[in-house]
C-alpha cells in the first residue's frame, strides 16, 4: 500500500488545504468587498430598491373674480396610477384596470408609450375615477401589481359655461410638450392650462408637486406607507384674482340671445380692467376635468358653431359703422373737418364717385348734414367724402397709430391680430399695382373692406374715445402687458364733441330704442358685411357720457333679423352702473337702424370683383 503511504497522503492533504484556503479566501474577499467596503452603497441601493416615490400633485391656485368669488377651485378626486416594474407586468396591470374602468386600447398604447419614455415615473392611468371604480379596484389590488390609488385635487369650475372662455380649462400634458421641455417642472401626467387664464397664468397657478414614499415589494405591490416625516407636502399654486365681475358676466350670459353666436366685452375704460368677457356659444369646462372622451372632444372641437372659439378675442369682424368714429377722429386730428363741417355733396341716398354710384344705407338720404349729424345717423355718403378728404394714406397711417394693426394685448392666449393694411403697398400686393381703385378708400371710410377687428380691439378703441386723455389702457384680466398704449391725439374738447355725438346716437339716432331713462349712454351701432350669410350686428357703447366708467362692445352674428345688440349693451351698462335689481322692462328692444349698404366695388371691373371674391 505504498500509494497510500502517509507521506503521500500528507502531501495531498497539504495541497488540498492550500486549494481550499485559496477558494474560501476568494469567497471571503468577495463578501468583504460587498459587505464591508460596499456596505454604504448597497445600503442605499436596497433602500431605493424598495422605496418608490410618488408625486403628490399640487392643487392648482384658485381663480377669483374681483370680489373674491371663486371661478376655479379644487375638490377631492381619486386618481388611478400604476408603478411600472417591467413592460409585461405593466401591460397586464393595464389590461386588468381596463376591464374595470373601460380603458380603451388607444389609451393603453399611449400609456405604454409614455412608460417607454420615462420608465421610472408612476403612470397616471385615470384621474377623476368614480367611487364605484375605486372600490372595485381596491378589491382586486393584490392581483394588480403596482396599483396606486390616491386622492388628488380635481379642478372644478363653479360657473361652468358662464366664464368658460375667460377661465379656460386644464388638460394633461402631451408627449410633445413633455419632450420639448417648454413647461417647467413638468412630468408625465402634469395638468397644464389649456385655454384662458388657466393657460395664461399656468406657471403661477400650477404650484409645486410634493412627494411621498411608499415601500413596495418586488412585484411593485404597496407594502406600507412611509411616515409623514419623509413626505414632501405639495404647495398649492398662487391664487389669481381677475378683474372680472362674475355677477355682470352671469348677467351677460343670461341676457345674451338664446342660440345666437357672438360675444360681449365690458371694460373699465379708465383702468383697462375687463369686467365681463363672454363668447357664445360656450362650453362646459368641467367636461375636460379628468380627461375627455375622444368622441366628445371630436364633437366639441368640430362643432359647426365652434364653442371652443373665443369670439371676443379670436373672432375678427368688419368693424363697420363703429369704425366711422376712427375716421371722424382722424379728420379732427388732421384738421380736415370739425364737428360742424358739411360735405360738398349732400346725402341723397347715395353719391356718384368716378363713374360709379355709392349708396348710403338709408335710401331716403340724410341731406346736407354736419359731422355730428353724420355720426348720429351713421351717414355713409358723408363718411365717403370725409375719407376721400383724409386720403387713403392718411386713413391707413392713423389707423396704425390708433392700434388697428395690433392685438389689444389682453392677457388671454390666442388673441387674433386684426387685419388692417399698414400702407397702400398692401393693396398693390393683393390686387396688383394698378388693380385697385379709390373704391378702397370709400370702403375703408365706412369700416368695410380690408379691415377686420376683434371685439376686444374695438372696445379698446372706444375706451380711447371715452377717456379724456384719448389714451386707452391695455385691456387686462389680471396683469397688463407692457404694450405701448395708443392715443387718439385729440384735444379734450374734440373728444367731448365726439362723445356728445355718440350720446346723440342713443338719445335720438340709430340706437334710440336702446335708451335707458336714468343713464346717459353714448354708443354706435353697426352692421358688418358677412359674405357667408346674414350680416353681423355691432354695438359699442359707454356710460355715463360725462365720465365713462364702462365700455361695452357686443357683436351678434347673423343678427340681421330681430337683433337686439344695442339693448343688450345698454342693459349690461345699466346692470353695472345702477345695480342688479333695476327693472328690466324699462329697456325696450330695437332693431339696428343702420343696416350697411351693399358691398362697394373696389376693382375697376365688376367681373374681376366677382372672380376675386369667389376665389378669396
Amino acid at each position, binding site marked *: *500500500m*505504498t*500509494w*497510500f503511504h502517509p507521506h*503521500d*497522503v*500528507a502531501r*495531498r*492533504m497539504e*495541497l*488540498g*488545504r492550500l486549494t*481550499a484556503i485559496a*477558494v*474560501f479566501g*476568494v*469567497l*471571503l474577499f*468577495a*463578501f*468583504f468587498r*460587498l*459587505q*464591508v467596503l*460596499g*456596505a454604504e*452603497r*448597497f*445600503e442605499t*441601493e*436596497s*433602500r431605493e*430598491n*424598495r422605496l418608490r416615490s410618488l408625486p403628490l400633485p399640487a392643487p392648482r391656485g384658485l381663480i377669483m373674480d374681483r370680489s373674491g368669488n371663486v371661478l376655479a377651485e379644487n375638490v377631492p378626486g381619486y386618481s388611478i396610477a400604476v408603478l411600472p416594474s*417591467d413592460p409585461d407586468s405593466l401591460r397586464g396591470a393595464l389590461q386588468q384596470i381596463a376591464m374595470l374602468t373601460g380603458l380603451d386600447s388607444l389609451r393603453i398604447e399611449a400609456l405604454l408609450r409614455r412608460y417607454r419614455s420615462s420608465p421610472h415615473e408612476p403612470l397616471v392611468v385615470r384621474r377623476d375615477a368614480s367611487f364605484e371604480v375605486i372600490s372595485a379596484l381596491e378589491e382586486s389590488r393584490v392581483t394588480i401589481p403596482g396599483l396606486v390609488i390616491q386622492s388628488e385635487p380635481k379642478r372644478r369650475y363653479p360657473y361652468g359655461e358662464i366664464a368658460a372662455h375667460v377661465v379656460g380649462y386644464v388638460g394633461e400634458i402631451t408627449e410633445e410638450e413633455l419632450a420639448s421641455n417648454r413647461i417647467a417642472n413638468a412630468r408625465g401626467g402634469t395638468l397644464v392650462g389649456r385655454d384662458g387664464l388657466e393657460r395664461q397664468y399656468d406657471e403661477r397657478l400650477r404650484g409645486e408637486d410634493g412627494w411621498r414614499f411608499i*415601500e*413596495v*415589494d*418586488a*412585484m411593485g*405591490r404597496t*407594502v*406600507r406607507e412611509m411616515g409623514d416625516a419623509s413626505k414632501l407636502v405639495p404647495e398649492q399654486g398662487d391664487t389669481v384674482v381677475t378683474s372680472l365681475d362674475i355677477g355682470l358676466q352671469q348677467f351677460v350670459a343670461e341676457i345674451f340671445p338664446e342660440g345666437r353666436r357672438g360675444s360681449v366685452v365690458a371694460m373699465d375704460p379708465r383702468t383697462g380692467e375687463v369686467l365681463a368677457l363672454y363668447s357664445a356659444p360656450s362650453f362646459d369646462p368641467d367636461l375636460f376635468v379628468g380627461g375627455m372622451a375622444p368622441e366628445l372632444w371630436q364633437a366639441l372641437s368640430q362643432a359647426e358653431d365652434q364653442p371652443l372659439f373665443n369670439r371676443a378675442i379670436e373672432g375678427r369682424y368688419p368693424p363697420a359703422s363703429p369704425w366711422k368714429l376712427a375716421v371722424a377722429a382722424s379728420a379732427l386730428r388732421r384738421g380736415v373737418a370739425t364737428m360742424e363741417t358739411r360735405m360738398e355733396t349732400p346725402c341723397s341716398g347715395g353719391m356718384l364717385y368716378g363713374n360709379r354710384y355709392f349708396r348710403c344705407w338709408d335710401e331716403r338720404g340724410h341731406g346736407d348734414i354736419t359731422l355730428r349729424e353724420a355720426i348720429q345717423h351713421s351717414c355713409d355718403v358723408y363718411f365717403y367724402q370725409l375719407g376721400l378728404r383724409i386720403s387713403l394714406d392718411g386713413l391707413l397711417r392713423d389707423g396704425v397709430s390708433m392700434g388697428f394693426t395690433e392685438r389689444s394685448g389682453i392677457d388671454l392666449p390666442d388673441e387674433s391680430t386684426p387685419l388692417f393694411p399698414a400702407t397702400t403697398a398692401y393693396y398693390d400686393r393683393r390686387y396688383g399695382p394698378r388693380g385697385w381703385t379709390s373704391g378702397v378708400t370709400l370702403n375703408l371710410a365706412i369700416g368695410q373692406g380690408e379691415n377686420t377687428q376683434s371685439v376686444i380691439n374695438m372696445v379698446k378703441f372706444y375706451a380711447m374715445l371715452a377717456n379724456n386723455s384719448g389714451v386707452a389702457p391695455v385691456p387686462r384680466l389680471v396683469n397688463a402687458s407692457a404694450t405701448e398704449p395708443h392715443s387718439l391725439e385729440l384735444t379734450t374738447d374734440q373728444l367731448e364733441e365726439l362723445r356728445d355725438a355718440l350720446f346723440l346716437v342713443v338719445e335720438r339716432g340709430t340706437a334710440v330704442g336702446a335708451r335707458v331713462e336714468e343713464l346717459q349712454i353714448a354708443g354706435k351701432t353697426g352692421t358688418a358685411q358677412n359674405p357667408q350669410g346674414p350680416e353681423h350686428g355691432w354695438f359699442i357703447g359707454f356710460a355715463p357720457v360725462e365720465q365713462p366708467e364702462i365700455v361695452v362692445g357686443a357683436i351678434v352674428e347673423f343678427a340681421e333679423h330681430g337683433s337686439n345688440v344695442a339693448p343688450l349693451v345698454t342693459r349690461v351698462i345699466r346692470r353695472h352702473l345702477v345695480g342688479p335689481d333695476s327693472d328690466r322692462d324699462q329697456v325696450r328692444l330695437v332693431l339696428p337702424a343702420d343696416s350697411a349698404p351693399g358691398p362697394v366695388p373696389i376693382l375697376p371691373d365688376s367681373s374681376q370683383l366677382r372672380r376675386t371674391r369667389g376665389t378669396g
Partner: protein
Amino acid sequence: MEQRGLDKTLPIFAVVLIAAGLGVLYSAGQTDVPTAVADLWRRQLVWVGLGVVAAAIVFRLSPRLLDWLAPTVYTVSILLLLVTLVFGVGAGTKSWIAIGGFRLGQPAELAKLATILMLARLLTVRRRPPRDIWEAMPAGLVVAVPFVLVSLQPDLGSAIVFIAILFGALFWVGLKLSLLLLLMSPLVSLMLAFSTWSWGAWIVFLTLFVIFTRPYLLEGLVIWLINAAMGIMALGLWQQLQPYQQNRLLSFLNPEIDPRATGWHIIQSKIAIGSGGLIGKGFTEGTQKRLAFLPAQHTDFIYSVVGEEFGFIGVLGTLGLFAGLIWTLVRIAGRVADPFSSMLVFGIASMLLTHVVVNVGMTVGVMPITGIPLPFFSYGGSFMLTCCVAIGLAWRVSRESYGAAYSSG
C-alpha cells in the same frame, strides 16, 4: 484524537449546520406578502428527520459491504437517471421522478453518492495510481455516464459537481499533477473558447506545458487535439444553448446586460448581501428578502439571506463551519488506512466543497448562476437526504479508522 471512542467533531459540525440552515430557511419564509415559502421549514424538518434515520442506517453498513454494493447502487442510480430523462417532470428541467404527480425526489442527488462509491471502488482495485490517461479512462467513463444524463435534463449545476468529484477522486488517488492538469485542460479550452484571444493564449501555454512535462507522445497529442476540438466545438455548443442558458452565462460576466431577467438575480442578491453590512439586519429582518426582491430565497439564493441578515460576521461564521466540516472530512480521509474508505470520504468532501463554493460564489457574483443547492441550507428533500447519508457514511469510516488504529496499535 487522543481520546478513545468516537470522534464527535463531524456530527457536531453537521448538527450545527443543519440547525443554522433550518433557522435561515424559517427566516426566508418571513416575507411581507406571505408566500408558499413561509411553511417550508416545517417540511424541511421532516426531511432532516428522515435524513437522520437514513444516516443511522448507513452508519451500520461496513465499508466492505459498501465496496461490494457499489456497482449495484451505481447501476440503480443510472437507471433512475434514465427514467428521469424519459418520464421526469419539472419546470424548465426534467429533474424529478414523480408518481401520480407526487414528487419523489431528484435522482441526480443520489447519483452523486453512487458515483463517489463507484469511483472509490474502481480506483482502488488496482492498488496503485493510474499511470496515464488510458488507465484513468474507466474512472472518466464512470463519471461521464451520469454527467451526460444530468446534462441532458438539463441540470448544468449538478453536471459540474460530477466533474468536480472526478477530479477530486483522481487527485486523491495520486494521479500525477501534470496529468491531472492535462485532463482538466479541455474544460479550460471550452470555457475560454468564447474569446479567440484567450483561447489562443491557452493553446500556446498548453503546447509549452506538454513539451516541458513530456508525457507519452500519443497522450500529449490526444490532449492537445481534444483542446483544439473543444475550442472549435464551443461555438457550436454555445449556439445550441437555450437563450436562458446563454443569458445566465453572460449575466455572470455582466449582470447589467439584462437587469430585469437573469442579471436580476445577481444584482438583487448582491444588494441584499451588501446591504447586510458587517453585522447584518438581524434574524428575519432582511428587507430585500421580506419584500421578495430576492429570487429563490429558499433554495439557490438562501445564502443571500444569511448575508443580508447576519452580515459579514455571519458569513465568516457559516463559511467557517463549512470549512471546518470539509476539513474534518479530509482529515478522516487522510487518517483511514483502507483506500476505499479514504476515497469515499474524500469524494464526499469534494462534493460538499463544490456545492458550497459554487452556490455561495453565485450569490456574490463570482460564479455563474447554475442553480445547485447549498448543503444543509437550501430547501430540498433529496439533497438533504444525500447530505445526511454522506455524513453518516463518513462518520462510519471515521469510526472504522479508530477501530483499525486500535486493532493494529
